[in-house]
């Protein structure tokens, strides 16, 4: 049963109150009806309240927009998702392994299965658009996490490479092309690429939980603009995003276009929603092209989250329900409120934001294979036995390459939490781990020293062969 607009508003009010976040804005498409709701304060410095048209940084949801754009090039025959990247951008080497780099395709970028260890890497770069090129030398030295085409591990930098391919074949930037091929055909008025445009209208700013249940406004509005393609520049509204999502539900047709105006062909829209690579947890979740998918009992939902300094955005479509949802919470701890929202709105599973089910703790599982140090370019994961003998202690140590992350209150914090086994290859945190919600760690590639890979926060890290510090 759909939530009526007033029910949606009540739910949003309840969620904001329950989680103590500054505010939230939501738009839903259910039962053929659009509803929006807004609650709380959009800017803790000025006190401006959230309104239905408050703009916000959409973060990584950008990847679904960029995928949509890439598919228009596939349709016109100028881009083949399965040709090697080097066919379009011969000078780009994605990853230190030259032979592997020559086999990588745009599909590997769009479904995060390229296996290159670069996710979350920031380079001291110029602003967009020139700054994108500043990433090239660094990514040519990136180590390998996995062979390509095997499993998905979230990789932001793959999208920077995708934009470079787009630039080489079109001579234009992603911002310009998206404006022309997606934003204008959809008639969107409040989706913009720079703070200088966004400031003309109501715009939210992020916040971070501080002491005593309060939130502090973010000291910095956005992440570096060179990361435009992975998702740091687009400011949009829930209404604009909902129109974009409805286009996807309509398999590419412009919604309310009164005819057959299209952004994408039906085949392209469907291709984006066809699973192309699973994540390490198994076939029930992974990626289509751009879209994350979750599957349960034959039902699939497609979604993406978006992070910004002190903000969490979210977008979801459930084709089985003709349902779409666009939301934003202006707190770094925004995932639990968004999980509650999805629970309230989505009539049946799977909910991509459902916290891991702790279920039965497996006391028979040997902890030894989990223990040790794992690493990816921007994070080290250290797992040691818990001092009180109950499960393990997980330490997540950020390894920022430059200080761009250090501006934010939580970005260089070491996170530590207890975790217990719920399966031979799975640990689940006890109590809040990431951004206020529980998290699962999945292990794979058993070896003589233990598991070689750990997967958490949608990202793989590989064992480094050093014993963890005790």
């Amino acid at each position, binding site marked *: 049963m759909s939530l009526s607009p007033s029910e949606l508003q009540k739910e949003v009010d309840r969620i904001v109150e329950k989680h103590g976040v500054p505010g939230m804005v939501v738009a839903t498409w259910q039962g053929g009806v659009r509803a929006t709701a807004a609650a709380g304060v959009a800017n803790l410095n000025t006190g401006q309240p959230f309104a239905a048209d408050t703009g916000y940084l959409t973060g990584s949801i950008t990847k679904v927009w960029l995928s949509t754009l890439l598919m228009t090039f596939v349709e016109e025959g100028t881009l083949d998702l399965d040709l090697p990247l080097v066919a379009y951008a011969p000078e780009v080497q994605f990853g230190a392994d030259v032979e592997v780099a020559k086999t990588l395709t745009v599909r590997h970028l769009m479904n995060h299965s390229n296996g290159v260890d670069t996710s979350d890497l920031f380079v001291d770069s110029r602003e967009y658009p020139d700054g994108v090129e500043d990433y090239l030398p660094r990514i040519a030295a990136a180590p390998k996490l996995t062979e390509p085409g095997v499993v998905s591990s979230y990789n932001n930098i793959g999208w920077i490479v995708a934009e470079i391919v787009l630039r080489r074949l079109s001579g234009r930037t992603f911002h310009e092309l998206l404006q022309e091929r997606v934003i204008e055909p959809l008639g969107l008025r409040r989706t913009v690429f720079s703070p200088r445009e966004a400031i003309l209208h109501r715009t939210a700013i992020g916040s971070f939980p501080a002491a005593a249940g309060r939130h502090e406004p*973010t000291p910095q509005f956005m992440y570096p603009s060179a990361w435009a393609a992975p998702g740091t520049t687009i400011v949009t509204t829930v209404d604009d995003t909902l129109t974009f999502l409805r286009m996807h539900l309509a398999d590419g047709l412009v919604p309310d276009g009164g005819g057959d105006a299209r952004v994408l062909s039906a085949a392209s829209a469907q291709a984006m929603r066809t699973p192309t690579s699973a994540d390490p947890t198994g076939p029930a979740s992974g990626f289509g092209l751009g879209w994350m998918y979750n599957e349960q009992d034959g039902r699939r939902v497609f979604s993406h989250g978006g992070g910004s300094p002190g903000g969490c955005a979210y977008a979801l479509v459930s084709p089985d329900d003709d349902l779409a949802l666009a939301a934003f919470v202006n707190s770094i701890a925004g995932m639990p409120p968004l999980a509650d929202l999805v629970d309230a709105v989505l009539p049946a599973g799977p909910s991509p934001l459902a916290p891991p089910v702790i279920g039965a703790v497996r006391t028979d599982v040997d902890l030894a294979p989990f223990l040790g140090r794992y690493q990816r370019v921007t994070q080290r994961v250290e797992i040691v036995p818990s001092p009180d003998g109950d499960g393990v202690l997980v330490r997540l140590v950020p390894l920022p390459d430059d200080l761009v992350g250090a501006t934010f209150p939580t970005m260089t914090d070491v996170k530590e939490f207890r975790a217990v086994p719920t399966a031979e290859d799975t640990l689940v945190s006890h109590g809040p781990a990431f951004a206020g919600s529980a998290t699962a760690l999945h292990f794979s590639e058993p070896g003589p020293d233990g598991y070689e890979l750990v997967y958490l926060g949608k990202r793989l890290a590989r064992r480094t062969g050093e014993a963890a510090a005790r």
Partner: protein
Amino acid sequence: MSDLGTLRDRLTHVLETRSAELKVAGAVVAVSVGGERVAVAHGSANLNTGQPFTTDTGFLLGSVTKVLVTTALLRLVERGAVDLDAPARRYVPEFTLADPDAAAAVTVRMLVNHTNGIDSDGLCPTPVRGRDASRSYTEHLPRMGVLFEPGTYLHYTNPGFVLAGRILEEQTGLPFELAIERELFEPCGMADATGVQTQAFLRRTAIGAYTDPETGALRATPRFTLGESLAGGGSTLIVTVDDLMAFGRMHLSGGIAPNGARVLSTEWVDAMRTPTFDLGLPQGPPMGLGWWLFPVAGTTAPWHGGGSPNGVSSFGILPEHDAVIASFATGGGRAVMNDLLHVAAVEELTGRSVTAPIDVTPTPAHDAVAGEYRAFQTRIVAEKDGDALVLTRHSEPYDEDHAAQSLAYATGMTDPVPLPYRGVAPGQYAPADADESALGGFYGRMGLVAAVPADGARRAGLHTGFRYYPKTA
């Protein structure tokens, strides 16, 4: 001098009674005298969101930035890092002009007193942002000429200040937006000032407003700022009136900020207020370094104005009255409102009237003034109409980018409109609809048009708005 309560009342009265008629969407003014300060805000800071203008609302400083940049540059001169009379090229490696000899003749001093003559006034490339933005301006200069031999005349210089900004960048190793924070905002205690535009989101910031030419309604500006490439000239800084009070007080005290920090030596503070070039025209007062030195109400007011897309700022100090005045307004009547507020403050502070800088005597337009004048992309056509003079400004954009900027800067005022002028003295013309009192204010004076004669190699022309337009036909 009357007390600040009377001054506050007068400023409030101006805002409340004149805003609607002048089509001002929002405005703020502050005056600091001795240890006290009054501030009044009015109207809307953003017509799209309804946010009210408050006294702590930030706004785009525009060209008032030029006084800040001059101050920061002189700190480098004081440290011995920069020689004011050395060629600017020594400190800006990429600087050259179409005439390399002219480029070699431009000294650092000429960058900040508008005498360098570089002919690229309205240029403001937008595509490049961040650390390379200023360079994206200077890389156009090899195509640009000069309007006169450097050092010999006066023409408002955005390029000069972009180059001064580049000197700051080269000497500090920081991009302009961070260099100005380190060399100016922090020492002066300008706590809410920022050169980093994305930070404007984090607090109350005003956006411009214009009058819709068809409906007469006030609308929010379609664009917030001009390109970052013009940062040195004033396209990026966002401040509050209290930031300007701190900056002004620093100058009044001979270089010590209200927080006690020594920002600049008294010697250099005084040098900024000492004439370095005098056009000898009422619309172009003597130029110090950075400051325009306006004679007004029996005193001299070092002053600067500023423009942003659909917003205007105004900032001056009255050293003889220990006062700082700062204002900002949006909407069709934004320049006039700034003048009204400053005139009100100057009159209250000095006890004297602000009057037109000339004795207005109706004078028929001279035949020889008819013709065409041009500087960079601005072409002015002057035609006689009986005794009156009709001036039509045409903008021939340098490129698409420039065209878009012009549209954004003064929305609703882009078609070339013939404007009638009347002769008010030999060789001096004022807008026909301006009464004498309007000519007394800082912007009002700038609007006077002078016909200037040829002098050696320099052609006859018009001088208005601090700019020289040589006669081309």
